[in-house]
């Protein structure tokens, strides 16, 4: 297949973000890379259906997400990261956020229903607009907004309960805030 190099570059430019999304869906690096490869195979086989000038990332994310829904989701999500490859991959995690806190965050994120998790990641990490995220997930904009809100609320609950000392304000600040109503 001969392809406009500009289009090919758009595809390649999207790959890092596509991988990040795939990993957040699969919870496993190897499976995520398989998913990305399969997505690219499909996309390039159907590149004629991509309208030049439209949103390439949104197009690729849609394909990946549909593929994940139809096939990968059946397989069990490996939250535990048994072989430690996920953790290994993330060794460059910024120092200002502690290791323990980050692990707690990842565990909490894994507890979310998948539709809420994907909505939160598309909007909060990938940087898609609510409109693009809705198009990627094939649902209404209002549905995406509600999923994102529920995801954030649930995460806050999980993290507030599980990691009082590790997450958010330190204990002293928290005590002050918790005693609110008297200040």
């Amino acid at each position: 297949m001969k392809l406009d190099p500009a289009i090919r570059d758009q595809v390649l430019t999207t790959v890092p973000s596509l991988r990040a999304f795939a990993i957040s869906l699969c919870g496993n690096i190897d499976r995520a890379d398989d998913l990305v490869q399969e997505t690219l195979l499909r996309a390039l086989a159907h590149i004629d259906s991509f309208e030049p000038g439209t949103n390439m990332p949104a197009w690729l994310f849609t394909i990946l997400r549909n593929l994940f829904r139809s096939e990968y989701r059946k397989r069990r999500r490996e939250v535990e990261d048994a072989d430690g490859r996920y953790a290994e991959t993330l060794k460059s995690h910024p120092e200002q956020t502690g290791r323990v806190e980050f692990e707690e965050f990842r565990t909490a994120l894994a507890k979310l229903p998948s539709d809420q998790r994907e909505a939160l990641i598309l909007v909060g990490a990938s940087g898609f607009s609510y409109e693009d995220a809705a198009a990627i997930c094939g649902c209404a904009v209002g549905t995406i907004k509600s999923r994102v809100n529920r995801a954030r609320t649930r995460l806050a609950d999980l993290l507030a309960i599980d990691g009082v000392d590790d997450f958010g304000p330190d204990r002293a600040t928290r005590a002050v805030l918790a005693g609110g109503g008297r200040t």
Partner: protein
Amino acid sequence: MKSGKTVNIEPPATNVDQAEARDAMGRPIAQRKNSEVRLGREIQARIGQQLRAMYEDVVKQGVPPHIEALVRRLTDNDDGVA
């Protein structure tokens, strides 16, 4: 996806619960709500930060060589696609 790093992680500014919260005398319960909202905001800010950090860790890895090779093989010549 926007090319800039803008992310819509902040919640909508409107807060219906807060607007409607009243005590037994019908007065707005602003005092207690404020502290809860503040705590909520701090946690949400941390959530947004963690979310982006987790994502960026992978993005920073760029395009794995085998994936780049795959894309180029599929797009560079007429024989690449089965």
